[in-house]
């Protein structure tokens, strides 16, 4: 999985396979903070590259955060982290085909179409996926790069919601993002995000 991993998009998680532990080395998620797709330069405002603790703390502090996860989540290692975040009680929007991996795991997970979701998120009247109220923070990973980038572009320009990418690609349209990460660093970064979250 050195790339966007189309090959594994539809792989289902093999429940029994072992989840890779986070490597022990010190990581820096602010390097290579250039749009993963070379031409994806939106304008003067581009995401601040952050270390994992930042989104972790913001998630922990947010009143009503939403984790959005997409069709690149099926890799067992990545999925395990998504589940771990979900287990802390954070609501998940499973976009694309990610529900096939995220469903039936006891999470607060809702299928959503990302494009429609972006539209709803821009509507201050929207009451959320469960009708219980809007979101103040959106965090995402595991979504087809350009697709995520376009959806976030709507939020960036037409909403007041903070958007943080914890994906392995630098996402210029988010408010904060990791740089482009190697797989092992990516997993380690997710683990560091998880560390900041309150246990449930």
């Amino acid at each position, binding site marked *: 999985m050195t790339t966007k991993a189309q090959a594994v998009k539809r792989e289902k998680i093999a429940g029994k396979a072992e989840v890779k532990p986070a490597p022990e080395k010190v990581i820096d998620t602010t390097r290579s903070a250039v749009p993963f797709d070379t031409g994806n330069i939106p*304008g003067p405002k581009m995401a601040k590259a952050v270390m994992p603790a930042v989104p972790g703390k913001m998630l922990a502090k947010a009143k009503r955060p939403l984790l959005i996860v997409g069709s690149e989540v099926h890799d067992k290692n990545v999925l395990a982290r998504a589940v771990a975040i979900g287990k802390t009680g954070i609501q998940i929007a499973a976009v694309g085909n990610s529900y096939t991996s995220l469903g039936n795991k006891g999470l607060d997970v809702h299928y959503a179409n990302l494009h429609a979701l972006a539209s709803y998120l821009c509507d201050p009247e929207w009451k959320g996926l469960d009708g219980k109220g809007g979101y103040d923070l959106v965090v995402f990973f595991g979504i087809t790069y*350009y697709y995520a980038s376009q959806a976030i572009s709507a939020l960036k*320009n*037409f909403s007041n919601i903070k958007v943080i990418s914890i994906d392995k690609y630098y996402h210029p349209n988010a408010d904060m993002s990791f740089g482009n990460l190697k797989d092992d660093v990516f997993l380690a970064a997710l683990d560091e995000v998880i560390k900041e979250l309150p246990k449930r």
Partner: protein
Amino acid sequence: MIVKKGSFVIEGLENVQINIGKIGAEQEQAVEGPTPRPEVISLRNWDYRILDRYNPVYTPTSDICDYCTYGKCDLTGNKEGACGIDLEGQSARQALMISVMGAACHSAHGRHLLHYLIKKYGEDHLIDVGPSNLKAPLTETIMGIQPQTIGDFLPVLDYIEEQLTQLMAAANTGQEGSSRDFESKALHAGMLDLLGMEVADIIQISCMGLPKSDEKTPMAEIGMGILDPKKPVVICVGHNIAAPAYILDNMDRNGQFDKIEIAGLCCTAHDMTRYNRNAKIIGSMSKELKYIRSGIPDVLVTDEQCVRADILKEAKKLHIPVIATNEKITYGLPDRSNDSVDAIIDDLVSGKQDGALLLDLEKVGELVPKLAMKMGPIRKAKGLTALPNEEEFKKLVAKCTKCLQCTRDCPQSLPIGDAMAAAAGGDLVPFEILHDKCVGCGRCDYSCPVDIPVLNVIEKAAQRVIREEKGKMRIGRGQIGDPEIREEGRNLVLGTTPGVLAFVGCGNYPDGTKDVYDIVEEMIQRSYIIISSGCAAMDIGMYKDKEGKTLYERYPGRFIKGNLLNTGSCVSNAHIAATTIKVASIFAGRKTKGNWEEIADYVLNRVGAVGIAWGAYSQKAFAIATGCNRLGIPVVAGPHGTKYRRAFIGKPYRKEDWNVLDGRDGSVVNVEPAPEHLMITAETKEELMPLLAKLCFRPSDNSLGRAIKLTHYIELSEKYLKKMPEDWHVYVRSEQDLPVAKREQLMKLLEERGWKIDWEKKKITEGPLRKVDVSFQPTNVPRLCKEAKK
């Protein structure tokens, strides 16, 4: 004296011109609706109805505007630029521009064809599209006239061009300021696009003997592996049949079909096979660079649209002469239209010139086969190809440093480095998979810091699968004839045929061409009617089942459930949209002439048709989608579609958005969100399929129809997303709407949701949004209500 159409002047009365025309006939053509020849503003009320429910969603690719010299203006966060436009306005303006460009493309194509066909066949050449009274549904609905001859389309094109100029003007700096009105204008452009396509295809069908609503057209061969590369090979690239027709005629006359291989790339391929059964199809636009690099073509003929900009440069490297035949694409080539065929051939064969612009199509017809016969042996002798040989290949793949640069430049982010590594280890499968997903754009070639010609490496590695790339496509049939509509219309409107799915557009798929095959196979087995056109129609024919049969061979081509229809090239798209008009007219007796709003309202509320442009890349595809939207047809694009920057997405949670009127009395009725969106994208095919099923619901569906649609919606969601849809219940009005097999189970679920069930009578007593009402007449247009009419 037989008075014929035409003009003459009486001697001595030089100032008097007598035109014999259709003045009488015109009187029969009473306009039936309020908006014949709609101006920019005429259908704005309808547009507002759409836009109020299906809100434009903007996903800018750039936060900056550089339209004028005040700029560049930073519009981040919806700030205003120096002219006062904000990012929402600018995004809507871009939507307008893209629609206008697309519409201009098809209309300019139609204009070129009409000039040429009138010159050849005369203005009075009769329209003949097959067994239909409603010959030109879009023309009737928009223009309010019923064209009889190809000359009748002249004012249609004049109208389109006038309107497009008005719209283009509105996009200038300092013009329209409202995003809503930019969208209304974009919808206008989309409608004009449908009209332009209809003109283009009807005139070529009528004059050039293309199939006329023929459900049983023969199969054409398709694929990169179908040609005999030992013969001289002529490849035509583009969309406009005019030039290839001359070549085909010439080859026919000279009996050269066994001597020369002739095939098309992109939509020209469609029309070549429609015109002459001896033509073959290489594939969609994605194959252009790949096929040229293979070195197989000996002559390239270009016309217009979807022709790569670097064709001349690429062809030149392999000494393949390029004959440009249309003034829209001239490549800087010398205009040889007035030179002798032999002189041109000499210059091309000798390599003195790399190509020629030849606007005299008769000469094109004469020159191309001759040139191919000369070039073929010369080029084959030299073995010209861009692909590396085995040894070079090994060296190249070994050079790769897995730097990811190519992946970052690749529109599909393909894992090229991994495939290089695998190939270095002797495993070509990753490259074979990559070949299917690769759109052949060539950007990776520019990326590689160690100068690996990446695309060539991919193609070399995929030779095994390429040789097997031999499919079949049912040749484009043209329109859906009135009789077929008469037969199927009721099923469609009542919902007993679950829906019409139109697979259209280009090959910028998110995950390879096979997706389209997989989706079509799934949906056709579920009895949806599948219509197709353009590159999508080609890609559907590229794959085979275990018995070696393509979908076209497995499923018949009638407009009836479980059939697979190919209308033809991109301009044949018009017929798909027009089919919904036919349903409104033939099945429901709606008046068409000059009556767009009523027709579109009918389609939106009653005709369960959805367009799928899974790999849409072009401005044209966006214009078509926008035109379909104005006609009330929802469209879904693949994830790349977000880069069109505007979608029309409904908000099911806003109850008030889903009020319609009951045509019987004008009362306001709250209905389910159906169709939920007018233009939206999905990330993967698994997400797409249940979405399609959902978008086929319409407020007018009866119980049987609802049950069928629900079945597929639920099954597809469970199959591909591993879940029951969260909103299936909104489409239920009574227990009759529940699929019989699952009725009990579903009623339990409804009870859990708080619905009241009378378990004895097996009846839902409380819960649904509204009751069943078989004669409900949903409409969004107040004036169409009986009450209002008084």
